[in-house]
């Protein structure tokens, strides 16, 4: 297997194992760690996680495909998650989505991000950018791209 957890992550895994009744609970934490190392979840990572958690590889694979935030392929562009659900839509998310089409990013239409009071909103690399306007988007993307 060509995927190895970093020593830091291995230490985290050992610590976490003590906190749960079964190593199976570590599937989500391990998937996050693997994604933070490689930007996506590779099949090799799935095999490694299977060993750590004692869950068969197919089950880990199924878990990875169930959740929106796990990438099973390495992203080629900056991932921009834009909320499209009702409150954001009422506050102009359609305009934001349209504006982002002109940018060199990968736009993901995601469901409610829990930022309804500061809509419209997008999330990039775990950080929220709220009360969006096209100008704000320009500034934000200038820094990130």
């Amino acid at each position, binding site marked *: 297997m060509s995927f190895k957890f970093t020593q830091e992550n291995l230490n985290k895994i050992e610590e976490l194992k003590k906190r749960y009744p079964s190593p199976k609970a570590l599937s989500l934490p391990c998937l996050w760690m693997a994604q933070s190392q490689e930007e996506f979840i590779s099949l090799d990572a799935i095999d490694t996680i299977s060993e750590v958690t004692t869950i068969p590889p*197919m089950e880990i694979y*199924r878990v990875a*495909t169930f959740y929106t935030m796990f990438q099973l392929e390495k992203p080629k562009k900056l991932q921009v998650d834009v909320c499209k659900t009702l409150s954001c839509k009422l506050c102009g998310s359609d305009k934001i989505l349209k504006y982002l089409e002109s940018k060199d990013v990968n736009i993901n239409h995601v469901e409610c991000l829990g930022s309804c009071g500061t809509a419209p909103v997008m999330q990039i690399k775990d950080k929220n950018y709220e009360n969006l306007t096209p100008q704000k988007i320009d500034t934000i993307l200038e820094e990130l791209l």
Partner: protein
Amino acid sequence: MSTLVKIIVDGQDYEAEAGSLLIQLLIQEDIKIPYFCYHESLGADGNCRMCMVGIEGQKRPQIACDTLIKEGMVVNTKTDTIKQVHTDILELELINHPVDCPTCDQAGECSLQDFYMEYGLHTSKITIEEKVKHNKAVDLGANVMLDQERCVLCARCTRFTDKITGTHELGIVGRGDNAKVTTMPNRPLSNPYAMNVVDLCPVGALTSKDFRFSQRVWFLETAEGVCHGCAKGCNVYIDHNKLKYKDDTIYRFRPRRNDAINGFFICDTGRLSYKELQENRQESTLLNGVIIDTDEAIKQAKELIFLYKSNISVIIDANLYTEEIEAIVTFAKSINATIFSPLEVYEEKAFGDDMLKSSMRAANAETIKRMGINTQRPEKIGLIINFNHPQEFESDKKINFLTHSRESAELCFAIAVFSESSGSLTNEDGITQYSQKAIDKNIPIMTVIESIQRLGL
């Protein structure tokens, strides 16, 4: 200790074990109820929601596969409300189902078709463009083809590879109506029992690559046979059909339920063993590789037996029926021959497992042992009369009775395989079973017993 309690279903009294599953009772008592995800070997999953019944005292309909029998329970499966529930949920199963029936192998043995005729008869309210699309004709490996669009996501196949074989090749990935059954990339379905998922699948999502497009099931006739692949004696259905101008042909084996032996399943090797019953057969009587007239050959055989009297060994294939073995033994004794059935050749340690596969690759080895037949190799002898045993032993002359062709210059008669006659056999656990004749060949090949009768000694 389990207690029997009385319950009422559709106004009739029934007795069942307290705490057992309601759906199990309904199935046993032949009370028709639609269901996909429940299977007696896999248990309940509660995801198809088809098996809904009304339970007195419960506001909402309950799924029978998650309802435990209680004393005095009153169940109704035929009220208008329940019928409407069945119809409605069936419509949802059908909404994204492709209307492949004209080309789908499952037609004729499809739960969706059966339920539609019983509970459905809806007209489609969705256009083809609006239906959810998935992959069709995915080769999963192990002779199993998957059509993801036909799948009703009952999870029987995935539960099979999880609970029964423990190999975990199949799983449902994705979410919502994007969910589909699949294998991991580059990890095909690969276990000795894989093809059982084709039987488990209630619709045409999983089909056998071996049987695909070969026959419409309503043309098939079925005999109840016993697989001869090993000493386990798994029960099978022998599905065959005689097409015009062709010979009666077996198209597939399917598992036949036997709770004492193989449960609901058979191994893939056994399932596909029907092929060898129709390949490479000894068709005619041969001497030195050349066809000779059978009556003439019988005359020559009698002469050989007279010539080599008291210098004869009779060798018996441990796959023959018990009646055939008994007849051979009687015959052998009548000509003062020694009798052997060397069993070592049938041992295949790598084949045996702790499920259905026995390392003894002979179906009736137990009978050989019980009859006290010598299972060692015979010494060199004058004449060997070989009743289909796979090994060659040393002798001056041989008379072979064979199901399959063999390189031989000796006298070789053709005999019928097990599917062309009926008889009994005893498996390694000592259970004696009867295997039905399935095939009536256009030009019948004589059975072992007929061959002995013709030798008339």
